[in-house]
């Protein structure tokens, strides 16, 4: 059973992963760390969510993966954005803005 903390909307997690990789390639642990940083500690992505998401994005052709060496000379699988992935960020962003605006409206309307 997924824990509440990582039970993000799937689109949100995809967007966060794509955003985390916008500057450079990174491995799974690095991506988790970056998401933690860019969301100021709000999101702590567990491997149980991260792994399926990474593979899903790769299947879609938005990420590419390769084996590389970490800072401490360990073997690690690195993910990077593909050109299609870069374009996808804009789409995901637009989606997210629509969703968050809608939710903001909904909350205002009920309170």
């Amino acid at each position, binding site marked *: 059973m997924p824990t509440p903390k990582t039970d993000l909307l799937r689109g949100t997690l995809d967007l966060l992963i794509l955003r985390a990789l916008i500057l450079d390639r990174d*491995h*799974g*642990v690095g991506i988790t*760390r970056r998401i933690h940083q860019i969301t100021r500690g709000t999101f702590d992505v*567990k*491997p*149980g969510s991260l*792994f*399926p998401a990474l*593979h*899903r994005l790769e*299947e*879609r*052709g938005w990420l590419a993966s390769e084996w590389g060496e*970490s800072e*401490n000379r*360990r*073997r*690690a*699988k690195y993910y990077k954005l593909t050109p299609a992935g870069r374009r996808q960020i804009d789409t995901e962003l637009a989606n997210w803005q629509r969703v968050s605006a809608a939710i903001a409206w909904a909350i205002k309307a009920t309170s």
Partner: protein
Amino acid sequence: MILLRSLFRNVFRHREVEQDLDAEVRAHLELLAEQHAANGMDEAAARRAAQIDIGSSAGLKDAVRDVRRGAWIEHLWRDFESGLRQVRRNPMFSAVAIATLALGIGVNTAMFSAVDAVLIRPLPYDDAGRLVMIWDDMSRTDSPKFFSTPPEWHEWRLNNTVFTDIAATEPGLATLSGDGEPEELAGRRVTANLWSVLGARPLIGRVFTEDEDARGVRVAVISYGLWQRRFGGSPDVLGRKVTLNDKPYEVLGVMPREFYFMPARDIDIWIPVSFSVADFTKWSWHDVHCVARLKPGVTVRQAAESMAALNLRVTAPHFDHPRAAVVTPLREELAGKTQTSLIVLLCASASVLLIACVNLANLLLSRGAVRRREVAVRAALGAGRGQLIAQLLIESLVLAGLGAIAGLALAVPVMRFLETLVPETMASLRLTLDWRVLAFSTGVAIAAGLTFGLMPALGAAQIALQDGLRDGGRGSAGARSHRFQYVLIVSETALAVVLLTTGGLLLQTFRHLRQLDLGIRPERVLTFVTPLFRYRAFDRRVAFVDAELEHIRAIPGVVNAAAISRIPLTVNDQSTFYLLAGQTNKEAAEQVALSRVVSRDYFTTVGASLREGRFFDGSDRRSESPVAIVNESFAERNFPGRSPIGARFQFGRWGSKAYWYTIVGVVKEIRDRGVAEELRPAVYRVHEQADQSGDEPSGIVVRTSGAATSIVPAVRLAIWSVDRNQPVARVQTIEDIVARQLSGPSQNTVLLSAFALLALLLASLGLYGVLSYAVTQRTNEIGVRMALGATSNDILLLFGRRGMLLTLAGLAIGMALAVLAARSMTTLFYGFRPDYVPALVVVSLTLVAVAAVACGVPARRASHIDPTVALLHE
């Protein structure tokens, strides 16, 4: 592109992908541990923390696999493998399931191949669905569908509004001589438009033209079989002259191998019918087959109405009671009685399969309870309802697939058996497992798997998600699934009753056919045909026939020999009109009798019995006042309650020059028209006195003291000693003829009885299975009852009664259905009206007895349960 690449990768490079994922998860674990260590944990604690972060690495990998493209293929494969594992894990259950399915699918596959060949596969004509046959409605002489006449064909062709064209064919036996031994050919004399009406083209050469037909030119179109057999398949057969009945005919064309047309598949030659003007006045010359092509947009029904009205108009000037015409689809004519028997057998085999499926559904429902824990564990591990159902269904499909494979092996011998069911009017077919049949059995297997798998799968998934792990499993779903199982039991019992009853009726019919009095003694009689086209002159013919009979009688081992115009018991309606003294011509036009011309000692040779008067004897010489012998049907129809001896009648022609025949004897019915055919009035004349008849006594019957076939070479020599060029054709014994005519009914009976027994066996197995499951499931309850004072007899009754009630319900429903089913099978009863009572009584007793055993064993087991053990049973 991406999609295809990843699908390819996932499906075909599965191992690499898996290894990669494995490495990735491990690397991730180490990186996490490193991070925890960097945050100040010691190495062991960091590892533990990392492991906790990841959770179950198997679960993680599963989650990743699910997002891959082609994941469903992998699921399917996994479920398939698990299905195979289930098969191996429960060898008894699987063996029973596969065997039942193999039987069900096997017989259905074979039945379908026969149905496909006879009823579905396209006929060798253009747009064959638009082809019909036209017949005379001769209901007044007991033939609602009779051959039509040349003038009717002529009038119909000119005046009909519903057909693009109508073609006619007439019988035309011919002896082919010239190079090689003379050969008797089945031929047809046909109108030139036959080919255009059928939409059939020759393989090589051409067919004859209207002009050639009208002028009576001697030309012929031959079959592929004759071309290969007699002319070695050489193309220079075209233009060659062949000798038919001693006259030269030019071969114009050869029909393709798959071509055949009514009334038999083995017709070898087609020649122009060349009707003369005189032929178009023969309103009682009933030997024409008419085939017609419907105009676009016209239905068979419309054509039938239009043609019935037309023929009433056309025949009105010639008869007091004009006759209508009957229109039937060609396919129906070709399939004949086989159509009903195939449909009945297909229904029966489908019922067997249905019973097999019902049984498996029951077994799976029972087993579902056993597997409840396993399913519940899967559900707890996160398998969704859909996944559970898919998995259970795929297990059923695996069983069905294995059953189908075994079934195909079984189908082949059954198909060999069914081949002989293909009617003689159709091409000789070898039933094969072609793609149509394979597609059918695949479809049947899938349908079967879904049928017996769906309810148990739904049930199991339901139960698992509700209360699977809660207790030992006597949950609330029990009552409902029981009710469903009872419905299944009742329906399979009902189906079995239907099959048993109809099987019993067929068995009765067949026994009746076997015991039919043929009117002759069939054992040790050889028959053959000596075509008499060289003896057109009456006196020469009589002399030749007498001479050949005399030579045959001289052969050692021959008891007697005689001649007749039609071999007895062969399906043949050579009949003509008669006029009794005192009747008018118009009355005569509505009464027909079979006409047979025989040699003097014909009746003693075949072993017929005399009812009254005398047989022919030496005093019956050529005379202006000839004699005749009639059968009982003739006597009863025309002389009810009095003796016909001495009565006089004219036969076939009337007027001052026509002979008056005096009846000198009445013979007991001989089944001249065929073993299972209705009896008709018949008239026998001595060939020496039959100079006013066209019938030639070309059939020879020989009674022997030893095996009938042993004298065949001697017979040929005897005949050739009279005429060196005389052909001898269609050699067969009377027993052969009887066996061939009974082979259809006997096969129907054997097959339906086999299906019925199978159904009974399966139904009783089903009853046994369900009841013994109920006993196991209710052991606790039984314990409580016994502890509260129920005797073992009470328990026996409790379970026995349940089973017997189910059986009786199935029996009642089945009987009602059986009576309905039997009504649609009447053509299979060959005019015989079987008695339902004995069949129903025997079926009821059998079923109740079998059910008593099937219920008794589990019920006894229940009554012997030790209450202390039962109460502890979990």
